[in-house]
């Protein structure tokens, strides 16, 4: 099995004093609510730069629209094959307190709170000795992969079997954590339609 390595690495992000890196298109991104927010939003209690980067940028990643056989508009990429990673963002932080995420959380960013808890819930900080700190590089990337060829609630029936290039979709958000003296770890987040839909 070929290991999949994201194209996001610590080398691609400058270690910035200000913490979270800024991605250009997100600095004036119009959100779902019609608000225009800036990369300064962390301080104002709105979405921080990390939250912005998590908003999947279909156009910036090279996507285009095409109609499916059912007539729905769907997002495609060229070449069409699934199995690609879309870098989102990356930054340095420090275990166990994760001060960069903590600052953003205190600024009101719910996604940073969510990500911080995801890291601490997995117990990575428990690998450290008491009083020990370690710098880690955290990176996030979306994964565009193959979806199930068909969905069903009936046993072993095949209600719909679209053509091959209609099988891909946004599957996972992966957060990788790298420390110079520790193993590479990643936390997997599934992407699915909102509950109740």
């Amino acid at each position, binding site marked *: 099995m070929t290991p999949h390595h994201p194209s996001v690495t610590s080398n691609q992000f400058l270690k910035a004093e200000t913490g979270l890196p800024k991605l250009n298109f997100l600095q004036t991104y119009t959100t779902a609510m019609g608000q225009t927010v800036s990369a300064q939003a962390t301080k104002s209690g709105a979405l921080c730069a990390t939250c912005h980067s998590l908003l999947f940028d279909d156009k910036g990643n090279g996507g285009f629209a095409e109609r499916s056989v059912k007539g729905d508009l769907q997002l495609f990429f060229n070449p069409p094959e699934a199995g690609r990673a879309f870098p989102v963002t990356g930054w340095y932080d420090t275990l166990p307190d994760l001060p960069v995420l903590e600052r953003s959380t205190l600024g009101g960013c719910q996604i940073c709170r969510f990500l911080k808890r995801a890291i601490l819930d997995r117990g990575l900080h428990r690998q450290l000795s008491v009083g020990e700190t370690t710098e880690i590089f955290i990176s996030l990337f979306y994964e565009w992969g193959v979806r199930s060829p068909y969905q069903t609630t009936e046993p072993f029936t095949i209600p719909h079997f679209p053509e091959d290039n*209609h099988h891909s979709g*946004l*599957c996972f958000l992966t957060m990788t954590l790298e420390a110079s003296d520790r193993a590479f770890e990643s*936390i997997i987040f599934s992407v699915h339609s909102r509950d109740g839909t």
Partner: protein
Amino acid sequence: MVRNHQAKGRVPQCSSCAEVVASWLGIDESTRGEPLSGQNVALVEKHLQYCLANHAVYRAGSFLPKRLIDLGRDGATHPRLVLTHQEIENQAFPAETVLYAALSYCWGPPADAVTQLKTEVHTLDSRLQEIPEAEMSAVMRDAVAVCRALKIRFLWIDSVCIVQDDRSDWEAESQQMGSIYRHSLLTICAPASHSCHQGFLDSGNDKIDVPFQSRIETSIVGSYTIEGQGLESGMSMLHPNNRSPYNIDIRVSSWATRGWVFQERKLSPRKIVFGRSMFHLVCAHECISQNGLVLRSPVTETLVRVFQALELGIFNDEEVHMAWAEIASEYAGLTLGQPLDRLPAISGLAKVFAESVGLSEDLYVAGLWKPHLLKGYGLLWQREAVCSRQELLNQFRRAQNFIAPTWTWANQAKSFKPGYLHYDLTGSPTRIHSRAEFRKMDIQTARAGLNAFGSITSGTIRMTGRLKTYASLRMSNQYSSTHARRVFEGGNRIADCVLDWVVHRDGEEQGGLLLLPLLSTCPGAAPGLLIYDELKGYDMLVQGDNDRQVVPSSDPYTFSATMDITVLRRITTDSGQEDIESICRCSTAYADQEQADRDVFGIVLYPSDTSGQYWRVGVFFSEALETGGLALFRDMPYQEFDIV
């Protein structure tokens, strides 16, 4: 666990918005409510009935465990332990109605395991009267809830149905575990639980909604949900195309890394797998997830179809060896709380394997099968070294910790690469002329208890062969792999080898080693063979990267491609006869010439502390070039010795 949905207030709530976003981004549906909702129970029941009617290989209930937990007909009575056959004799219930579920779960840390409900000699009578649900662990209570929802009256749980402090009962029942899981109506698997005290019906994953607006089709506005699944360690991340909800749920679990779970997972024909994200119904044909996704499951996700093929007798000897070696290799790297359980924890599977192939139990020796050892290739396994020469030799000397002799994979808790002599890189059979280079082999092991497939106290191979001793060999790194080494004696290249201890990359003298030839092939026939490639250290994963270690195929969640191909080929080939490509270009007569030079495969030995006894410490290949091949051993006399 608090679900983090604070961001919900920031994004549109209309369901159609979310649907449009889901359709545009091709994202999966969310799970359909609580695992045991009426809709989900109906889905499970439908699939279960369909599988039983159309896929069933082993009739559920055709084997009955000695003890079962009876949950009662209506769910109103208290669970109690029953002696199954005694109850049937007493006509408490007819045998044909006894369909049972089996539970597969992690006991967890010792502190948790010791406090879980179990049956011991002094509690057996009270368990036969009643098992108070309040005393059950969280995992057991959830399993009972699943059974009641699915109207399955009987449940098998190892800690309750085996008398834990009765050694003879434990040995007899652990040997039956293969049959218990193989004949269950449904196996309830709990990868969402890390301990017996953690239930699996409420995974409690954190979720958050993320807003989305397309920059291509700006009218597409809404949100989707991201949900924390778990931690994946190491560098062997799955390719996105293999990241189905089922694969992720398995990979982030500790359940799938447990040695005892292995035979439960592999032998169950029908499983309901409760993962961190959702449940999945898995049989040998399909994997249906709670959110409606349907995947064709790998042929070897359960071993049902492999055992079908074995029972049909369509595998030749080396393919039977291949089937077992792949199973053992996948198992060998898994975690066991007690290292001494290494053979017992796979004994149920070994027993089923023996029954399927028609091998008698006395042919099973320390995790290997005598017929494959006698062919020579059974000893040609290799693995990545993780400890120093001194550490390995010290382990060999510690008799009080004896688990298995050095000639078997079971000696160490580490995955290995089996030796396949007559197969190419794709697992396809090839015709080469091979010949045994030893005269006699006798294998003896001593059982530690009643279980013929369980622990042993000793194991010896007495051989008559040609041993060549080397005062000093220089090992140097010639390949991308870090554990295959080229071997020189006095400047002459004589072999390539993989030792069971770490050898430095930059050339290192190794004293006191012996080479024992086991099999030879016609010169030049070896390139292209799977085993040749492995011994040469070539690995697709590390091309152009000399600084990384080669990791043997050790993904604990999928069977190797080699076995998949072989099984599929055998299952789909009507006659079982194939057009085998010949890579041996010599004449058949050449193979019979005793003095002709030949390529050699064999093992590396090191003298034990007892005269005439050796430890197996590696595997080698010697090419019939100027200073290698069978010529190395031509002047050596045959002698008798032991490998222990």
